[in-house]
């Protein structure tokens, strides 16, 4: 397997409604920024990987065809990836597979969604089985509410601890110009008093719905060093799945994420993730999830996710900053969201994260989540090629 690295990233400004551009226009914005960041042109790109979430969000099937021009795929090999909420990460991982396998040397991966085009919870509700459960499922919030309640019941985490996550990430977002939500006066009281969406989840425990796109350029060893002075070497990736209602399931035990974490730590030789990883970008669409994901990724003991956030360890000044970008709680396009985690992790190790740069970040981990609470992806990037 060849070594491969992220050598350029591009994000659009995300907004509740980008009425200035079409969906292909958004894709073009992210793609050109990634090429610019890598210092290359579309002529240097050997293949394009395109990703977006359910077509029902934009109501146009074959989004890879609709966006062929705008993603730079004209007369190039192009594939499309779709894996629910993890699609952004799977698209980056597919581009990595291409380069690592030696199929192509330089690959452009581009993802996005324009969630303002339709009622997003209506589209999301169509991911439920039509015979068993679509009748009263309420998009993503109600499913995650069931998870949050079970997590609170099993481990005793609290709504107040979840609110700490919501505040931390919204404060970080103030340092990220691309983030959608900028709430300067965010506080625990604001979160606790915000409108209830689906108990115990309140409005400010939840991500917004965004129009936005993200792209990355992934290049092989040899080229990567030419394109970037400090490439983000991809050290390990994992995409794991679990069933929806399998026997013995407990939503407080994200088995797929635990398996994914074991795999990427083994591949990279990480034995103490809390100490060896400098920064994490997690897919916390809802505040409770960040605590649960940090446990499942072995940053702390099971049930200690609430205490981890209380300790301040996951703040930008802590020993394990989580979501310095402001995370999914500040921006959620769905299609691009998991790629934004990878791009942000890469920006950290490349030293290109601007105001939300974590000093000295050398190893970063990016997580993706999606499906009926069962898809998980991980990617570890590092300044260290070997």
């Amino acid at each position, binding site marked *: 397997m060849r070594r491969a690295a992220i050598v350029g990233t591009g994000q659009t400004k995300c907004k509740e409604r*980008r*009425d*200035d*551009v*079409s969906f*292909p*226009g958004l894709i*073009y914005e992210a793609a*050109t920024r990634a090429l610019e960041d890598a210092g290359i*042109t*579309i002529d240097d790109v050997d293949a394009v990987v395109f990703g977006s979430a359910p077509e*029902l969000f*934009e*109501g146009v099937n074959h989004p890879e065809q609709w966006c*062929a*021009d*705008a993603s*730079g*795929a004209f007369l190039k090999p192009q594939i499309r990836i779709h894996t629910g909420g993890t699609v952004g990460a799977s698209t980056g991982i597919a581009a990595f597979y291409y380069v690592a396998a030696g199929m192509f040397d330089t690959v452009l991966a581009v993802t996005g969604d*324009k969630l*303002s*085009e*339709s*009622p997003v*919870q*209506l*589209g999301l*509700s*169509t991911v439920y089985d*039509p*015979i*068993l*459960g*679509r*009748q*009263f499922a*309420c*998009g993503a*919030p*109600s499913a995650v*509410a*069931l*998870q949050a*309640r*079970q997590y609170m*019941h099993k481990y005793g985490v609290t709504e107040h601890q979840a609110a700490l996550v919501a505040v931390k990430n919204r404060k970080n977002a103030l340092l990220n110009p691309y983030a959608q939500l900028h709430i300067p006066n965010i506080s625990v009281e604001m979160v606790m008093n915000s409108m*209830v*969406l*689906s*108990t*115990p*989840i309140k409005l400010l425990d939840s991500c917004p719905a965004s*129009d936005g796109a993200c792209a990355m350029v992934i290049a092989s060893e040899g080229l990567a060093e030419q394109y970037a002075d400090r490439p983000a070497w991809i050290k390990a990736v994992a995409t794991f799945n679990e*069933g*929806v*209602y*399998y*026997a*013995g*399931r407990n939503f407080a035990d994200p088995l797929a994420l635990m398996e994914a974490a074991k795999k990427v730590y083994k591949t990279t030789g990480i034995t103490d993730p809390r100490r060896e990883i400098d920064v994490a970008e997690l897919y916390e669409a809802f505040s409770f999830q960040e605590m649960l994901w940090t446990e499942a990724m072995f940053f702390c003991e099971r049930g200690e996710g609430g205490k981890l956030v209380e300790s301040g360890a996951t703040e930008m000044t802590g020993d394990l900053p989580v979501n310095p970008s402001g995370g999914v709680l500040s921006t959620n396009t769905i299609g691009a969201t998991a790629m934004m985690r990878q791009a942000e992790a890469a920006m950290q190790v490349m030293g290109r994260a601007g105001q939300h740069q974590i000093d000295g970040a050398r190893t970063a981990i990016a997580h993706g989540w999606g499906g009926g609470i069962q898809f998980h992806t991980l990617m570890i990037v590092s300044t260290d090629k070997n």
Partner: protein
Amino acid sequence: MILHGDITIPYKWTTGPAIGRFLAELRDNARIVGARCAECNKVFVPPTDVCGQCFKPLDAWVELTGEGEIIAASAVHYQLPWSPLPPPYTLALVRLDGADTELIHLAQEGLKTGDRVRAKFKEERSGTILDIDKFVPLADATVEREATTTQPLKEVRGQVSLPYRWSYGKALSRFFQESRDNKRLMGTRCPRCLSVTVPAARICTRCFVEATEWVEVSDHGVLETFTTVHLPFPGQPTEPPYTYGLILLDGASTYFSHLIEEPVESLRCGMRVQAVWSDERKGDLFDILHFKKEES
């Protein structure tokens, strides 16, 4: 068994600068405009935001006469719910004078490759591609119109609505027949891990083996988790607020998802609940109306 249903979603599609201007020109000036790529000099009609070949944004506008040539034509003889006209009608690829791409549109019957045509506009126009009524032979008189300044259209509204017939499959068909006819909840036992999947399923998720042994489980069980939904959205099948949860029925190894009707304050993870059956059962999830606190 089959469940009949549909997915209907309203949309507001952002046009972007190119199509926004194109549609506004159709509506306000009965005029067709294209966009030129500064790199390759090609003119795109309808305009797009990006020249795919040069990977550059298109930003130079070109006004066209609305006259051109038929590149290919086809008489359509079948009808779909969204067909623009009753069949037969003629669909054509039209290369407008000054354009480097073709426009797909309706054409007068009998037109063929190489014929010279012009766009005939409707009198009432609303900013859609059908503001052009159809392409007609050039010989027909042209109506001269004065152009005014137009504001690009920001969005186009529409809806996608598709009817479905979802097949239950063998296992769920039997599950719902039993629930409808006998008020019985059936599961399937995995021969390997011995777990019982409810509602019945052909495959054990964990073991990926066929579960062929049928077992009846109780309509009583434990409420594992629950939520009260307050968030409304267009097209929601159940009107909020309502409470639903995941129930581990006695004898089952998997969760059963259903509505819970009890005062919210009295609900706890781990409490005992029981099904309340409907008197009018049709073989679907609502053969059970909801779950309530177990009667002692």
